[in-house]
């Protein structure tokens, strides 16, 4: 077991525990940067997709994982970001500007939405945001002059610093774009968490009364959290639009909102890692199931889809298993595995057995 002695305040402030951990992260970063040379187009595309979901997950994590405000409507903000980006591009705004602006606009809209949502808690907030998510479909239809209504919109390749970025034509360039955004958002998130604003988010999540008593303006903090969350989600939406190249009112459904929430819960609420782990599960597991189906088919014979919807059924079962197995999310499980290795051989067999736990009402605020 490595024991880190604290000798300097900076040790708590900088985002890595020690050089060892830092080097691990740097290796990971190097690996993902060179991914286009390692992976074929299919897997690169899937990795891109997972990263886009992870960005969306980071967005929702700010709000739900760190500020404790459950949203079942974040697909609405994906849509917002996506449309804002494309409409700006159509107006001739260069991508370098259009993309950040798309997030910013979504963030501002999110903060505005937060104003009426401020007095809502828990399930009431969840259903409020869900209603927004359901309405966004109709809003897109009603704002046809800008949104293209039901016929939707098409977004072609974009260019960034002279580089042609095209999901299908230059998948590696698109991947790097997404990776760049992912890294930037993650760094911003880390910085947030070690700054006063990030701590005030956690304060609001854990106890609104004492946050107030410490001088945290709860309403303002929630607005900020909504704004930031929606901004990041908006970027994810813009990337999703570029990834799909075509989208309309039926693209960002409430089901996607639900999947986003599932993703961060399965990954582990309240941790950055959780957003990534969850994105792998929600983003890649269905593909994995679909691919493994071929091999199952090869072994047991019969190429055809015998049971329609089987993958979704199995996917549901696996999600259930994940949650039953580790209600604190995959990141919680990962931490345990790591502790196990660190303590080796001084672990006890039932060290991580769940002690009985009990809930109290959430109807008191």
């Amino acid at each position, binding site marked *: 077991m490595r024991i880190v002695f604290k000798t300097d305040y900076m040790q708590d402030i900088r985002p890595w525990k020690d050089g060892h951990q830092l080097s691990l992260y740097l290796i990971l970063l190097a690996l993902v940067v060179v991914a286009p040379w390692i992976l074929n187009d299919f897997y690169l595309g899937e990795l891109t997709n997972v990263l886009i979901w992870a960005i969306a997950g980071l967005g929702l994590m700010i709000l*739900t994982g760190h500020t404790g405000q*459950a949203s079942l409507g974040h697909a609405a903000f994906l849509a917002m970001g996506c449309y804002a980006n494309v409409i700006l591009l159509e107006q001739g705004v260069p991508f370098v500007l259009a993309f950040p602006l798309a997030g910013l606009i979504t963030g501002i809209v999110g903060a505005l939405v937060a104003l*009426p949502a401020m*007095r*809502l*808690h828990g*399930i*009431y907030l969840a*259903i*409020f945001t*869900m*209603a*927004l998510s*359901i*309405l966004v479909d*109709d809003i897109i*239809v*009603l704002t046809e002059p800008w949104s293209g209504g039901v016929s939707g919109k098409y977004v072609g390749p974009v260019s960034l610093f002279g580089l042609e970025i095209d999901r299908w034509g230059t998948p590696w360039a698109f991947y790097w774009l997404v990776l760049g955004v992912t890294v930037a958002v993650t760094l911003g998130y880390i910085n947030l968490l070690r700054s006063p604003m990030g701590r005030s988010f956690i304060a609001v999540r854990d106890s609104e*009364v004492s946050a107030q008593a410490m001088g945290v303006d709860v309403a303002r903090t929630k607005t900020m959290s909504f704004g930031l969350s929606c901004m990041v989600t908006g970027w994810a939406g813009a990337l999703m639009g570029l990834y799909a190249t075509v989208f309309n009112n039926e693209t960002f459904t*409430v089901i996607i909102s*639900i999947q986003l*929430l*599932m993703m961060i*819960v*399965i990954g582990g*609420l309240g941790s950055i890692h959780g957003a990534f782990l969850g994105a792998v599960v929600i983003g890649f597991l269905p593909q994995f199931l679909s691919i493994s189906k071929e091999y199952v088919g090869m072994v047991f014979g019969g190429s055809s889809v015998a*049971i*329609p*919807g*089987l993958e*979704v*059924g199995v*996917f*549901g*079962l696996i*999600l*259930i298993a994940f*949650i*039953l197995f580790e*209600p*604190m999310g995959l990141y919680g499980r990962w931490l345990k595995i790591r502790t196990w290795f660190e303590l080796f051989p001084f672990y006890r067999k039932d060290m991580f057995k769940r002690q*009985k*736990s*009990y*809930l*109290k*009402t*959430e*109807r*008191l*605020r």
Partner: protein
Amino acid sequence: MDTLQLLISGLANGCVYGLIALGFVLIYKATEAVNFAQGDLMMLGAFIAIGLTNAEYMGLPFLPSVILSIGIMGVIGYLLDRFVIRLMFGQSQVAVVILTIALGFVIRFVAGLIWGHEPHALENPMAGGEVRLGDLVLGMEDVAVIVVTLLLTFGLFAFFARTKLGLAMQGASQNQLAAYYMGIPVKRVQGLVWALAGAVAAIAGILFAAKGSVDPSTGLLGIKAFAAAVIGGFGSLPGALVGGLIVGVMEPFAARYIAAGYSQIAPYALLVAMLIFRPSGIFSQTRVKKV
């Protein structure tokens, strides 16, 4: 006259929402878990009744098969709790929400596998029957929905308010630890409530399938019923009914008087407006914590 007709059919429709909402509220009231699979349980209940009743399947007489399906759904509800939900005892509510959403996927898949994806209607003696009051027409099924919903709401309300078990359920939802300290078998109580919710889902499903038809994605109706429960004040049984009625009555009037393109938005717009002005519903169930 027109208005009255809209009102009456809105009420009947609202009762269906109320009935599904009751299932949500039941589980919430006793466990503070939000069961997002309630709509899917209703769909399953409907299909079980169809499987027992309809000529192409087992063709049992209507009444016994209705009773049987309510029983089966009660058992399914209990087993769901016993073998799935209970493993999550004491874990965060969000995790339970996600769990029930995933359960919904699985239920939809199973139903599709057994009964296919096309709509099925429940063969029933009420079909085609109607009650006429002057110019007003009301289907027999609508009458049944209204009667059953009212009875069930008041029955459940009395159960929670008057019986020791009902009180214990409320206590268990507010503080599981304290409930145990009082000797309440919290897990068994929760199993009971899931059984009850299963039975209520079956009743809702049967009435729904008799009134129209069901397919595996019918469960999505649960979302609107959920909205209804929230409007009423999540956790309040009369609230579920009132919320259901508001949404139900809202719909025909919106469809009648609001321009196309906007009318279908009305229930959700109402929900949003409602929450802005009454952040915890009509019969608020939340309190400010005393410190």
